[in-house]
């Protein structure tokens, strides 16, 4: 394998792994901040126990997110040095700002929150977790500003053999950011909601002590979750329509749409021949893709072959088609997991709004296992959005293979890949062990640290 393929695998693995932890941090920090605010307002001890219980799980997850995040900042220079040289003038800025504005706030106030239970007033302590929540999401915003430049480059000019920033505000107010960031935030809410629902369901199933905490958590998470899921769908729809305009090839790949169609049919299930770009077997719903793309039953949606021809004229000879099967199936897994979550959270909400928690054991187990759903949706969503951009690193500006470090050989990448894989595997075992241990232990003795 050549070093480009290895570097791509490495980027994919460390980034997807990092993103196992990030959405929970983003969503759960806000959720905990809300609960602690309720505690401050009502003074009821059960909200304090809730804050501490979910807080402990939050911290275990947070540590993994922070630790694996360091690789993210280093790897552009390490493995993608030509990319860093070419776009650093534009792309480096949001990363630096992320550290200065968000990482400092997040890390400092998290320290204050962990150690400040007895040293700060209740209000100040709750303010600390709000600052952590805002800072975490601020960091997501800046990294998505950077990613949005790769998806939809704006505010730059090619000069002196590289991309140079010409308009900082164009970069920050890139239209792509304002569909992508809300999508990520709403997904993070959903992830946190299902995390809380799953673990609460476990305790409802086991009839653990301190039932009121799990019932309350279950209820609040259902409300939090329904807001999250509905936002994901609404924003996701807007994002898809945006994608039709800015990255039509990604949309075509998501639908395995080989040729232009007007009106366009949506694929429900396709087994395709990627090499020859044709369907082997497909179930398709007429008009639906046009409706989704343009809100009317007519309107062209571009196909892969037509776009390929168009891009050859625009960018020169080359293959501009992303891996279709990966795009198609990851997109469906994301949406499918989203639909399941919508159904589950609707059912949960229907019950808990009447304050009924008499779920059957089967349903409670279903909620427990549904913990996998947000993780599937988050991972496949990102794989889709990054794979669907191929062959570009920066859409229309720089190809992935031109960005790789030309002095880092395949041997070095194999070495780092092995180190990360072994390390990440071992840490996952430790992380799951601790999360499970504290999730099962529940709120009993939550104030006692282990001696």
């Amino acid at each position, binding site marked *: 394998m050549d070093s480009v393929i290895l570097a791509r695998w490495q980027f994919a693995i460390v980034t997807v792994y990092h993103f196992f932890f990030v959405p929970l941090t983003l969503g759960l920090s806000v959720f905990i901040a809300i609960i602690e605010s309720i505690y401050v307002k009502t003074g009821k001890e059960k909200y304090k126990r809730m804050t501490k219980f979910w807080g402990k799980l939050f911290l275990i997850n947070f540590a993994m997110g922070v630790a694996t995040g360091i690789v993210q900042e280093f790897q552009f220079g390490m493995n993608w040095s030509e990319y860093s040289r070419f776009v650093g003038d534009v792309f480096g800025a949001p990363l630096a700002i992320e550290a*200065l504005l968000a990482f400092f706030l997040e890390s400092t106030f998290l320290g204050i929150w962990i150690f400040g239970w007895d040293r700060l007033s209740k209000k100040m302590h709750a303010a600390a977790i709000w600052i952590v929540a805002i800072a975490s999401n601020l960091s997501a915003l800046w990294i998505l500003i950077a990613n949005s430049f790769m998806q939809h480059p704006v505010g730059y000019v090619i000069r002196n053999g590289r991309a140079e920033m010409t308009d900082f505000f164009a970069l920050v107010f890139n239209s792509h950011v304002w569909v992508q960031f809300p999508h990520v935030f709403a997904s993070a809410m959903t992830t946190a909601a299902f995390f809380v629902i799953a673990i609460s369901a476990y305790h409802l199933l086991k009839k653990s002590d301190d039932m009121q905490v799990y019932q309350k958590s279950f209820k609040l998470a259902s409300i939090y979750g329904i807001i999250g899921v509905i936002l994901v769908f609404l924003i996701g729809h807007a994002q898809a329509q945006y994608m039709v305009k800015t990255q039509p090839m990604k949309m075509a790949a998501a639908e395995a749409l080989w040729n232009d169609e007007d009106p366009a049919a949506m694929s429900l299930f396709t087994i395709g021949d990627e090499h020859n770009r044709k369907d082997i077997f497909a179930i398709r719903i007429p008009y639906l893709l046009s409706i989704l793309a343009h809100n009317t039953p007519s309107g062209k949606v571009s196909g892969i072959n037509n776009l390929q021809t168009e891009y050859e004229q625009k960018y020169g000879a080359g293959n501009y088609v992303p891996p279709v099967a990966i795009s198609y199936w990851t997109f469906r897994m994301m949406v499918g997991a989203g639909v399941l979550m919508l159904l589950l959270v609707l059912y949960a909400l229907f019950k808990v709004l009447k304050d009924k928690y008499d779920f059957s054991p089967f349903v409670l187990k279903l909620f427990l296992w549904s913990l996998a759903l947000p993780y599937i949706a988050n991972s496949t969503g990102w794989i889709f959005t990054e794979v669907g951009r191929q062959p570009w690193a920066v859409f229309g500006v720089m190809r992935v293979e031109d960005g790789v470090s030309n002095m880092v050989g395949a041997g070095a990448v194999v070495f780092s890949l092995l180190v990360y894989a072994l390390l990440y595997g071992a840490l996952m075992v430790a992380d799951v062990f601790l999360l499970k*241990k504290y999730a099962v232990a529940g709120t009993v003795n939550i104030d006692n640290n282990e001696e």
Partner: protein
Amino acid sequence: MDLNTVWFSLIAVLFTGFFFLEGFDYGVGILLPFMSKEDKKRRVIINTIGTFWDGNEVWLLTAGGAMFAAFPNWYATMFSGFYIALVFMLLALIVRGVSFEFRSKDKNPAWRSLWDWAIFFGSFVPALLWGVAMANLIRGVPIDANMNYTGGFFNLLNPYALVGGLASLSMFTLHGAIFLNLKTTDDVREKSRVVASKLWLPTIVLVLGFAVFSYFSTDMFSKRGVTPIVAGLALLSVGWLIKKDRGGWAFIMSGVTIAFATITVFLGLFPRVMVSSLNEAWSLTIYNASSSPYTLKVMTIIAAIFTPIVLVYQAWTYWIFRKRISVDSDLEY
């Protein structure tokens, strides 16, 4: 002063702050397994940096981000060139990052011992490698006309850089011992004072040895200045201050040593950011490695607004958690 110089200075400040702050975190981590066999006392030691270490590490992340934004070629050449060394660094930082949180979460002695050694390893490796990296920046590494690093991993492990690594390792360990002396009570405090006084002499030898080596191997001292003298005098005073049990002053002086040594290296580098050992003309400088004037201007405005705010609230946390930690404190970790 042009903006390129401003950004060079800001990155120098970020590294100075990082070595000053994370320096004692590393030192505490390195000393952890040797200070006490008792779990409770090890917890005291970890809790002295519990609130601070993550915020301190962000100084590095910000320095890295600032290099990327202001000097993309520096970031690209250094990070791809020092690839294998950085893999070890990342391995250490990742392991260390989770250790503080994970260690206290189970009381099995084997589990705790595992994470104690992870903290040790995660602190030892970067404490050593930062000296190696800094020494190589100023000594010069093979960089060709296209700003590509053409050496391998073992080019970085030359005798000069290894002495630099040992100097930073010993200096951070000493700094950590003095910090522990300042933040703990009773026998942990007393032990850390003994450790600090024992570390002082070897540290002097290594740091001065590195300075002498630098005089012959680099052009670091070609620009005359008082910064190396300040660093040297401060380090000399540390031994006396430890002896007199003046923990606060000893900490300030070990901090001054680290800060002025870092400033000396950056002044020696200026206006270069990486020296090419192949051809002086191929060195990366604050001009040929930099971003465009527009980007530097934007980043200057942002840094000017937010850096003071960061300094204020970080200082505030040190104030809130200024109390010494003892076995009777609320130990979170």
